[in-house]
């Protein structure tokens, strides 16, 4: 426990430092002290507008979405007992993006406020349910990955189709945003749009902690401890769909965070899924905050997509995991 507490404290400190760096990164060239003063005091100056309406929502969304993806990755891996499970790779994020795009282009998102995250949620539910039905707890890694490829391909194609059919001349160019994700020019509106569903999803996924621990002892033991598999599965589907749907609706599909973060942290927290959930949430927030600072430093004028950076880190690790999984004969 001491070791876990230390790790969580360190991760929290890392998040605080990255959050502050994110607030102080941007093209307006504000110096740190006056910028933070403007953020806190809020005197209606241009600095306040930049800090409160442009940089604060960006940093908040990075932390919220990163935590969501880390948490969802750890929960899926715990339930499926498979280190390759991750919302991006399994097409959950892609399906959420499809839901969001449909809500935006049909005008549903403009008609009532929560239509955008709810539509993304429906997309994510369909994908998670489909994946669990196809691969389940007893399907091998190959089945899982193949199901993910199929769901991703279908969601990607339909997203591109909807955007190409849009009467808006800019829509088709945004296929890359929905597939790679970006936090540029998001606002507090997006924070409030994503937060309710996301918080619900966090609570659902956190409630899985003891069930996932029990599951490591086998399904029968878990059931005798009051953690029946069907209920765990339902909670996992709902929780993952809530956090991934809400995040993707405002920032697009950001991949690999749910894969990379649990993988790095697993050796540090030991074998207990409950510990990994907490650590992965903090780790995911830190990774996305760092990625979002990096895209602003590498190409400040270009809105480099977040998914580019996370894939550059995540894809080699994914290959390594596939190699190791095969060597250990887990297929």
């Amino acid at each position, binding site marked *: 426990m001491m070791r876990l507490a230390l790790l969580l404290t360190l991760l929290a400190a890392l998040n605080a430092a990255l959050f502050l760096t994110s607030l102080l990164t*941007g*093209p*307006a*060239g*504000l110096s740190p002290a006056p910028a933070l003063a403007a953020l806190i005091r809020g005197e209606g100056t*241009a*600095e306040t*507008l*930049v800090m409160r*309406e*442009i*940089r604060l929502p960006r940093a908040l969304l990075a932390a919220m979405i990163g935590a969501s993806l880390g948490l969802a990755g750890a929960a899926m891996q715990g339930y499926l007992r498979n280190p390759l499970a991750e919302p991006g790779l399994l097409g959950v994020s892609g399906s959420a993006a499809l839901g969001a795009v449909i809500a*935006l*282009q049909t*005008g549903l*998102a*403009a008609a009532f406020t929560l239509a955008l995250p709810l539509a993304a949620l429906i997309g994510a539910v369909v994908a998670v349910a489909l994946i669990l039905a196809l691969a389940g707890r007893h399907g091998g890694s190959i089945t899982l990955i193949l199901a993910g490829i199929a769901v991703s391909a279908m969601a990607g194609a339909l997203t591109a189709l909807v955007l190409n059919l*849009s*009467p*808006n*001349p*800019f*829509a088709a*160019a*945004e296929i890359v*945003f929905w597939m790679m994700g970006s936090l540029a*020019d998001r*606002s*507090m*509106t997006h924070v409030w749009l994503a937060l309710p569903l996301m918080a619900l999803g966090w609570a659902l996924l956190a409630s899985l902690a003891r069930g996932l621990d029990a599951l490591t002892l086998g399904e029968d033991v878990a059931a005798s401890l009051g953690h029946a598999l069907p209920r765990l599965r339902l909670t996992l589907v709902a929780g993952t769909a809530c956090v991934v749907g809400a995040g993707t609706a405002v920032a697009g599909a950001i991949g690999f965070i749910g894969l990379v973060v649990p993988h790095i942290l697993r050796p540090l927290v030991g074998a207990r899924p409950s510990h990994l959930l907490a650590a992965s949430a903090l780790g995911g927030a830190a990774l996305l905050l760092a990625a979002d600072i990096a895209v602003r430093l590498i190409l*400040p*004028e270009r809105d480099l997509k977040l998914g580019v950076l996370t894939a550059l880190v995540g894809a080699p690790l994914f290959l390594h995991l596939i190699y190791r999984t095969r060597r250990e004969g887990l297929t």
Partner: protein
Amino acid sequence: MPRPAGPSTLASPRASDLAALTVALLGATAAAAGPPQRVVSLNLCTDQLAMMLAAPGQLVSVTHLAADPMMSVMADQATGFPLNHGRAEEIHALTPDLVLATNWTPRHTFSLLERLGLRVEQMPLATRLDQIPGNIAHIGALLGREAQAQALVEDFHAGLAALAPPPGARPRAVLHNANNYTSGAGTMAAELLALAGLANIAEEAGIIGGGNLAMEQIVMLAPDLVIQAQRYPGASRAEAVMDHPAMLALRDRGGGALADAEWVCGTPHVLRAVARLAALRDAAEGGE
């Protein structure tokens, strides 16, 4: 809408007219066989100039964009023509004896039409006001309608002369388009702002030609006026920047919208855009 950027030097309009008329005379000699009878236009801007200048029946087809009121100030006139989509096959089927293209026409379409034996003429799109008379004369000469072109050029100069920038303070404005795209020094948009008595903050920020100005920078430059582009149907993240709370806060101080149709092409219609900008300026002045 992205617009091509040009060098920022401003020659006197009259000097460029002389050059344009020389081009026009040469063009007339080349077309000694008589003016073309079946003209097809491949670009929104040549559509509009051709509709203003062509003899009845001479123009066979314009692009579908010319009939779109969001893009074209001459949508009503354009609905009278068969509309094309700029595809080589449909152009060839119209059996034109002159195809009007621009320097923005896709290279492969252009060469395919030439290989099909069609006469294709390119008009460089105007990126500055002083290029407009030249383009009018160019299209007039290609159509064998020099007198009409001359009259249109004279009207344009008269309209331009009547639009002396108003005296007094020059409120600082930003043109805010989808994706935070704006128009800096050397663009026709910047010239129109200046004619309307507005200072362009994109030029303060050192933007030459068209470019993106980060929202943070726009907020820090604190413009008096935010002039945003029109909205298209459907939704896009690119356009969502215009509804960002930070931009709404700026727009509360002053602002308005300008339709793409009014200035996307270098035609005499751009003078209407100046009048509209000047009205926004006066409203901002009155509000202070």
